[in-house]
């Protein structure tokens, strides 16, 4: 087992070592805080580090262990959350200057409470695109987060801090938020696992902007087992070990999902397809329109409750998102309602697809991480704006409410890229079983970046 004080230690390895008293929660937290302190100036994954809170919480876990009280499944595991999630005593900024002067959260979000009830220790808040609006974590009022695998590159977004903190080995477990791809996209570009759970299964209380109909909080980690444990804790479902022997019908998505991706992304999909023996190709129903519907719904919902901010302090919005929020506030009801109507119909078509297949393999991103500040991507000879193109393969799934897991593909030290696995609602266990098989075969791998 990995040294529990090593940055490569996974959440379940740390918890096992703490349960067996090989290491204390205080030692683990001190080690994580030291690594955060050392790397943060270069990566900028955090918007706030809750040192006193984490140290105090670690002492309580150690006290519980000394007193032979059950410390919880994730005892002593440091974790951090996307800055849209309430952490008591910390301002919930969502990466926006609009919120930096808000009062600190008076209590933890339900998702933080659930993780800490299981013994985990929140060490802070993580950087993100302003109010979740972006795919590169460059629109944060705190400045951009850098990809630990190459600091000149973006970690993706909007949960860029959540992915970068994992890839750098700062913490073994984080929470992100995903509307159009904000967990799956940075997971791909940072080489970590990221789950968008079945929508509605993870509590949204204490999550800024959670009132929309598309987004959800989800777990991010460096192994499948940690994702499965985190998912069980967040949803309150029973934990079941991922197994590599399950027989499932797996197919690769064709058409739209086999175009507009570069050789890195295509070879990642092909490696997964071959490893799983997935001979069948399946057509995902009408991805262009499902993407359009998800973008319209998310755009309109992103402006809900923002009119006062847009009227009175529009200059506080990031220059890169200001015009978008203003436009989103003006989306006519007919566009929104028609998109929701289409979305409901599309979801029925996707559920019908799952009568023929259990798990679908799709690209997560069309390429590896672009450079920070890079405004365009060239794919298949065409040039595209970076932000929208990075979400090309995550957005069509967003309105379906179905779970999707980004799996990092082993690439021998080259910049990471992931693959999405997609299943019917409440079938996360199927995603975990397929991912566990890929992990066991060495196809999926999440390594710690050697930050230079």
């Amino acid at each position, binding site marked *: 087992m990995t040294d529990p004080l090593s940055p490569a230690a996974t959440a379940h390895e740390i918890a096992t070592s703490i349960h067996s008293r090989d290491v204390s929660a205080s030692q683990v937290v001190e080690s994580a805080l030291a690594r955060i302190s050392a790397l943060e100036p270069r990566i900028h994954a955090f918007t706030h580090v809750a040192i006193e809170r984490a140290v105090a919480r670690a002492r309580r876990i150690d006290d519980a262990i000394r007193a032979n009280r059950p410390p919880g499944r994730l005892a002593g595991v440091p974790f951090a959350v996307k800055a849209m999630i309430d952490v008591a005593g910390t301002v919930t900024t969502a990466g926006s200057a609009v919120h930096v002067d808000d009062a600190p959260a008076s209590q933890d979000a339900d998702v933080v409470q659930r993780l800490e009830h299981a013994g985990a220790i929140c060490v802070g808040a993580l950087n993100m695109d302003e109010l979740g609006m972006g795919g590169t974590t460059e629109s944060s009022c705190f400045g951009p987060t850098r990809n630990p695998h190459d600091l000149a590159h973006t970690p993706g977004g909007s949960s860029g801090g959540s992915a970068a903190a994992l890839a750098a080995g700062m913490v073994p477990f984080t929470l992100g938020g995903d509307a159009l791809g904000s967990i799956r996209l940075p997971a791909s570009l940072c080489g970590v696992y990221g789950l968008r759970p079945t929508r509605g299964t993870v509590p949204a209380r204490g999550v800024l902007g959670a009132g929309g109909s598309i987004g959800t909080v989800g777990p991010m980690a460096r192994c499948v087992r940690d994702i499965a444990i985190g998912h069980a804790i967040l949803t309150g479902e029973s934990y079941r070990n991922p197994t590599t022997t399950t027989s499932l019908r797996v197919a690769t998505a064709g058409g739209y999902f086999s175009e507009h991706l570069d050789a890195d992304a295509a070879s990642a999909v092909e490696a997964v397809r071959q490893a799983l023996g997935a001979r069948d190709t399946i057509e995902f129903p009408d991805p262009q329109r499902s993407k359009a519907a998800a973008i319209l719904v998310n755009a309109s919902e992103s402006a809900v409750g923002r009119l006062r901010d847009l009227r009175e302090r529009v200059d506080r919005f990031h220059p890169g998102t200001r*015009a978008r929020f*203003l436009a*989103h*506030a*003006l989306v006519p009801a007919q*566009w929104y309602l028609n998109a929701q*109507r289409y979305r409901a*119909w599309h979801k029925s078509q996707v559920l019908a697809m799952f009568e023929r297949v259990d798990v679908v393999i799709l690209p997560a991103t069309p390429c590896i991480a672009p450079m920070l500040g890079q405004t365009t991507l060239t794919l298949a000879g065409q040039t595209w704006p970076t932000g929208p193109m990075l979400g090309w393969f995550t957005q069509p799934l967003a309105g379906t409410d179905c779970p999707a897991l980004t799996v990092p593909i082993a690439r021998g030290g080259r910049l990471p890229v992931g693959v999405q696995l997609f299943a019917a609602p409440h079938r996360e266990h199927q995603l975990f079983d397929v991912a566990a098989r890929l992990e066991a075969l060495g196809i999926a791998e999440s390594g710690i970046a050697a930050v230079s």
Partner: protein
Amino acid sequence: MTSFDPHAYLDACAAALDLPIPVDQRDAVAANLARLELLARQLADVELSSCSSVESQTGT
């Protein structure tokens, strides 16, 4: 769908909502609206099968 003039729509709608649009943002907001309108257009005329089940999902 009739042709969409994002600047005209923007001016009318922003006035109705009492939402001032900074002069330096006007073209960018209009460009965003034009992009969203293209997406809305993709969904405007699509024939949906099994519409009765759809209505039941979107109703309250």
